[in-house]
């Protein structure tokens, strides 16, 4: 679709950009008094209007901007996830004691910019847009990770993030350039057409391009062995940002990786294709299966030894990337649906767990697991939801995490491939039980019920309870969410 006609299907992103420009101007021209509050409220209003525009958006039926961006139900599903995550972070930021001593007005603007990048990542269908969208997200995240200027940990996390980000996106860019060299086009569907006709020496280059692209995506979703930045960045960044990074860019990374691999390396011209296209002697499914097994094992085993709750949750987020990659080994609608379902559930439970970390930090300044002793007696309204989130992260019924994991495993079982990976996944879940339950044990079984309870912010507690509702609800009645996922997986073909 040509550029001018495309604009009407690009309204949410256009509005987001325009509102950012306006908010920057308001920000610099108003005095320092109240500017945090004004910028936050303006940004929340921008989020609301963006949500409305996303809600009324119609399907163009073909990719917009000459095939560069897909406006399909699949991308819209992820855009809703990003909107929810961003709104939750906006909501809890004024109640985060870590951030109170810094000027936060630019923080909100950076969050909006990152969300704009995430929107593009969910829709990108063109190699250039893919690279640009990842960079928009990354650069905003670098700044946000280092937002506590006086805090050495925050500085360290930002610097590590920059170095890892620059390196892995450099490698990915090289991979994308190889792909462009092979196909002669930046459009993913053209790439697929070209790859399907390649024989001979192209195979080796194709394998190199595939692996290099996987480096870039692996960095975004913190897949082992590209996960080394995760614990340090997650620990040093302000906890609100940690919560955001652990759900939104990860979901976007999965959305983009599945779209790119599903189109360019699929065996036919639709998204998702039915099977992987064989790249030389390399079976893509097996490569992803190896990465998946490594990722979940590394994440879980390293999480055991952590004493900082934030660090432990960071390794747990690495492990969860591994679980989700497990379904991505197979290329079909069922696998995509399983990953999307799990990402939606993961958004609720992981955000919830991090909000509890923020609240405990506000109250007691704790981060070590040992300091959480007896929290169940002091803050029951927070400790119980934390228990639910941890059960859900482990994958125990009757929580949504259980349902999500069942869907992930069922992809492998019904495709009759990679049995070893399914077994490894189950074993890993058992390992994860240990460190999740360790927090539970410290909260509820250690410490004495002194009878004194600590008052907590109604807003924060309310948000945590609100995030607990979907985790419990989708654990017993998940068909609405699954229905939404299925509706979002209308097969997308390029239309000409």
């Amino acid at each position, binding site marked *: 679709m040509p550029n001018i006609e495309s604009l009407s299907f690009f309204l949410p992103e256009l509005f987001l950009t325009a509102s950012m420009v306006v908010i920057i101007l308001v*920000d*610099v021209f108003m005095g*320092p008094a*109240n*500017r945090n509050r004004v910028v936050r409220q303006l940004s929340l209003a921008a989020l609301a209007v963006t949500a409305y525009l996303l809600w009324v958006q119609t399907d163009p039926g073909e990719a917009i901007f000459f095939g560069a961006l897909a406006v399909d139900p699949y991308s819209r599903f992820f855009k809703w996830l990003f909107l929810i995550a961003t709104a939750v972070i906006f909501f809890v930021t004024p109640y985060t004691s870590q951030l*109170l001593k810094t*000027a936060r007005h630019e923080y909100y603007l950076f969050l909006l910019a990152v969300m704009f990048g995430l929107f593009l990542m969910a829709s990108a269908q063109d190699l250039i847009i893919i690279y640009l969208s990842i960079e928009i997200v990354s650069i905003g995240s670098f700044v946000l990770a280092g937002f506590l200027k006086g805090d050495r940990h925050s500085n360290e996390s930002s610097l590590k993030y920059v170095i890892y980000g620059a390196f892995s996106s450099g490698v990915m860019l090289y991979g994308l350039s190889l792909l462009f060299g092979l196909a002669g086009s930046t459009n993913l569907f053209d790439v697929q057409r070209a790859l399907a006709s390649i024989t001979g*020496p192209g195979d080796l280059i194709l394998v190199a391009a595939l692996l290099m692209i996987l480096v870039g995506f692996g960095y975004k979703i913190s897949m082992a062995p590209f996960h080394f930045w995760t614990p340090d960045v997650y620990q040093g960044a302000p906890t609100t940002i940690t919560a955001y990074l652990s759900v939104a860019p990860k979901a976007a990374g999965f959305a983009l990786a599945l779209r790119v691999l599903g189109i360019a390396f699929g065996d036919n011209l639709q998204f998702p294709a039915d099977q992987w296209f064989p790249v030389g002697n390399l079976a893509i499914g097996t490569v992803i299966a190896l990465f998946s097994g490594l990722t979940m094992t590394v994440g879980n085993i390293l999480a055991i030894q952590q004493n900082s709750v934030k660090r432990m949750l960071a390794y747990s987020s690495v492990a969860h990337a591994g679980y989700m990659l497990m379904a991505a080994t197979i290329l079909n609608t069922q696998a995509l649906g399983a990953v999307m379902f799990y990402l939606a559930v993961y958004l609720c439970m992981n955000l919830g767990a991090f909000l509890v970390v923020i609240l405990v930090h*506000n109250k007691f300044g704790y981060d070590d697991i040992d300091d959480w002793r007896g929290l169940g007696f002091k803050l029951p309204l927070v400790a119980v939801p934390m228990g639910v989130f941890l059960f859900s992260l482990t994958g125990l019924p009757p929580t949504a995490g259980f349902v999500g994991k069942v869907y992930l495993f069922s992809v492998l079982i019904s495709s009759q491939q990679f049995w070893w990976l399914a077994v490894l996944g189950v074993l890993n879940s058992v390992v994860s039980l240990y460190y999740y339950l360790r927090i539970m044990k410290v909260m509820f079984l250690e410490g004495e019920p002194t009878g004194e309870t600590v008052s907590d912010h109604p807003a924060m507690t309310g948000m945590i309870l609100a995030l607990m509702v979907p985790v419990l609800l989708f654990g017993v009645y998940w068909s609405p969410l699954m229905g939404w996922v299925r509706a979002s997986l209308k097969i997308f073909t390029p239309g000409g």
Partner: protein
Amino acid sequence: MYTDFAPILIFSVLSVALILFALFLQRILAPTNKSALKSSTYECGEEAIDNARMQFNIRFYVVALVFLIFDVELVLLFPWAVVFKELGLVAFVEMLIFLLILTVGLIAVWRRGDLDWVKMEVPYARGRYAQLEQPLVDEPAPEMAAELEA
């Protein structure tokens, strides 16, 4: 299609070979007459007085970043200007929007005082020259404020 890249391969091999050849040639032809003065770092310039790895004022980086943005803007303006006539009104409006967004960035930098080298009167400057009359941070949320004081 790989043969299309053959000139590039030949060019890179030749350029490396030429350099090696020149180095080899001067090794056998030129007289070697080493002295301490000759092997000092700047034979024809100032003597090094200190390590180059020193701390810079962070304002250099801000200026460098601003420069970079407008440098990239120019790079994007050149190809646009070359084909401007063929592209017509749409491209003109698109480029205006692009410039507008960049100008907002310039306004923000200007207004924040990052273009002033000596920050005498900028309301939100920090450090030695700051004349802070108003607090940098506004009031925290009411329930948090009580807690911070406690």
